[in-house]
């Protein structure tokens, strides 16, 4: 059973990125559960976790949101590579936060970045995931926590 603190750590890692990098805080939407195939947008940063918990945590965002985020960061390169870098950095931050808080119990992988409509996110069949919408400006991304 996931602890609230664990979920909060991942959520804070994500919202913190927006607050710090774009100087504009993100809020979280109404969280819910989901079973089965992962829900993803165009760009997804994934960290794998093993140890006390097993599974994946990923941040997936639509291109439009990333574009605005990059603009807010005064970036003017909106290439595919930059988008990948950006979700990679968000995942990096989530991973860093998790290491700080649960480094003792978790083994946390280096983030990997996936893009496209149907990325291969390793997930156990029947695994229930927490979906936490990350709302920023008018856009919405998702933080998916899929751990056992």
């Amino acid at each position, binding site marked *: 059973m996931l602890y609230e603190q664990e979920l909060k750590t991942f959520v804070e890692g994500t919202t913190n990125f927006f607050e710090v990098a774009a100087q504009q805080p993100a809020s*979280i939407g109404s*969280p*819910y559960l989901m*079973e*089965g*195939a992962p829900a993803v947008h165009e760009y997804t940063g994934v960290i794998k976790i093993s140890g006390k918990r097993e599974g994946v945590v990923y941040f997936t965002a639509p291109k439009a949101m990333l574009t605005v985020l990059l603009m807010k960061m005064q970036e003017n390169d909106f290439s595919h590579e930059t988008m990948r870098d950006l979700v990679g950095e968000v995942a990096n931050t989530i991973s860093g936060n998790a290491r700080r808080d649960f480094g003792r119990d978790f083994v946390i992988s280096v983030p990997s970045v996936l893009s496209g409509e149907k990325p291969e996110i390793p997930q156990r069949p029947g695994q229930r995931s927490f979906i936490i919408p990350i709302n920023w400006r008018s856009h919405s991304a998702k933080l998916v926590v899929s751990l056992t």
Partner: protein
Amino acid sequence: MSLAGTERRRQLFTASIGTALMLVMGLALIWGFRLATHMRANIIALQTASTLQTYPEEISHQLNALRDRLEVRAYSGQALADLQATVKRFDQELRVLSGSVDADSPQLGHALLLWHQYAPVLEPVVSFGGQPYVDSDNAGSSLSREGREHYAEVKRAQLFASENARPLQTQLANLATSLERTSSAGATRLRSLLMGGVFAALVLAVVAAYFQLSRARHERAAREAQEQTRDILKTVREGFFLLDAHYRIGSVWSEALTRMFGRNDFAGLTFEELLEDLVPQSTLATAMKYIKLLWGDRAHENLMKSINPLGQLEITTDNGHGGKETRYLQFDFHRVMGPEGIKHVLCSVGDITSSVLLARELHDSQENANAQLDMMVGLMHVDPLQLVSFLDTAETGLKLVNTILKEPARTDAEFRKKLAGLFREMHTIKGEASALNLKSVAMRVHTLEDMVGDCKKKPELSGNDFLPMVLKLDELLAHLRNVREMAARVTALKDTSAGSAATAAADFAASAHAPLAPAPITAMAPAPAAPAAPPAPAAALTAPAAAAPPARSANQERPARRVEELSPALQSMAERLAQDHAKRFRLTLNGLAEVPAPYTATIKDCLIQMLRNAAVHGIEPPEVRRAQAKKDTGNVQVDFRRTAEGYELLFEDDGAGIAPEALKAAAVRRQLITEEDAELMDTRAAMALIFRPGFSTQEDITMDAGRGVGMDVVARSVYALGGKIGVSTHPGKFTRFKIVLPATDSLSTAVA
């Protein structure tokens, strides 16, 4: 640092005072000795001078005597001898005196001058050695030639004496006076010297004494300071010690360390030795690297603080009883700067075990709740089919909850809108769980309900407030799955022991393998006040309406059985309610076997809610009933029957009935209506209040009622089936609910 300097200065001062004292005494002694010697010489000289002043007169007398003798031709030998002796003595003593008295003494000078004139005059007299007389018989004795010369010499000397003896004597007397004055001055000087010496010694002694006193005071202050430091180190709850450049612990450390580390030999211990048996090797390595960095000057204090790896250090120590004990320590490091850079590192250690354990305990209690197996016992007594039916309904309900959650929300209003719907779903599930006496489920739903309740009170809602809910929801789903698995085991156990109920087991297995199959609750979707959003795009956890038909047909395969099976559950719920609320009543159930499959779930829900209402609000406590001339034991009667139009359910209790005024008052209190509204309401409208969402007349919240959800759920589900619900009451006599449902063949149109 200044302490050592003060001590050195003090020693120096003491030494110089001692030296000064010795010097003063020595000087006084030497000077005094010289003065005394000088005085002694003066006194001797004074005596001599006093003696000498008589000599000139003596010499004069003796000269006279000698002349007299010579004139009368008497024997002059004796007189001459006397004179010779006197002159010789005078000459000698004057010589001695002139050697001892300062040559520049004017009186002595004059005396010597006079004597130098006098002595040659006397010389011929005293050196006379001849025969003064010539003996002749005729003339008797007469002066010889020598005698005559001698006589003349004597007379000359006498003459000189008569002129000079007195001055000489005066000079000598003056000399004596002068010498006396000198010695009395010397005596005065000596006295002053002695007094001065004594005084100086006294002054020094006073200074020394004062100094000693102040030193004692300082020492006392220092000792007190030391004692205070010791007291602080003894009583302070944090561990304190200093590390030197070799990472060794200094000699001063606080007692708290003993408790924390279970040892007391800290002085001289290296930091590595302190930790090596307590923490894993990797932690120790990081810690030592950090300590090393502290001694470098590359990183400033804030940076060092931010990377402190020993902020929460888990250590394992012996607990003193042969066992191991885990403690959590918080280390803080501060550089202590000296003139040449970092002098020490001050390390403070706090024991944060209790706070860490407290946080852990919270987790553990959650885990314990998960592992609660009381349901095991409960499950043994629940009919497997009923249980499966409940689990299906509950899961469907929770999926509906999830669908409500899934509806995107950003604003407080959007979040708040979800609460009512969530509440209703929870309440229904809780009601059923209570009916089946599944406490572990009911408790969890209750917690979730509490969370929703807490959210209602918050002034501003955000997604963060929903995080605990979704966690709890996940936990609840997991728990339901556990219940299902456990129920399967229980069933298997029953099967093997009884060898019967094979069909039930098969049924159960079928359901167990389709945990997500939507239960009839989906039929609620088209209800007028449906809280859920329009059907979301197919996602695994939503309750898709499309999936409903197969489930319904599954239900139809077992017509009515489920409600029939509900009877014992309702009876046991009634018993429990009676017991919990100190009521006494009999539940009579008629015609439940007639309930068609599409209505089973709704009828079940309705019966549970109404039974709860009757037990909590309707039936009076026995003593009240007795006072109203009613039987102690109340009656709750349920009748289900087929009618020409469809079906009819009557639910009646012979309890307190419902007072319209009480309903109005409660509705006003809950701000469902205003007082003006209440004034204008007729009895009929007032009675309808009990079907309003959020209405309840019970003040305290229990597992059974008082949530303000109950009859509105019933009403909603009845409407959802195209039915009607009505209530009639007579205060003090009865309350009767009548539910009318259409014939089942018309249901398909209602749903579509």
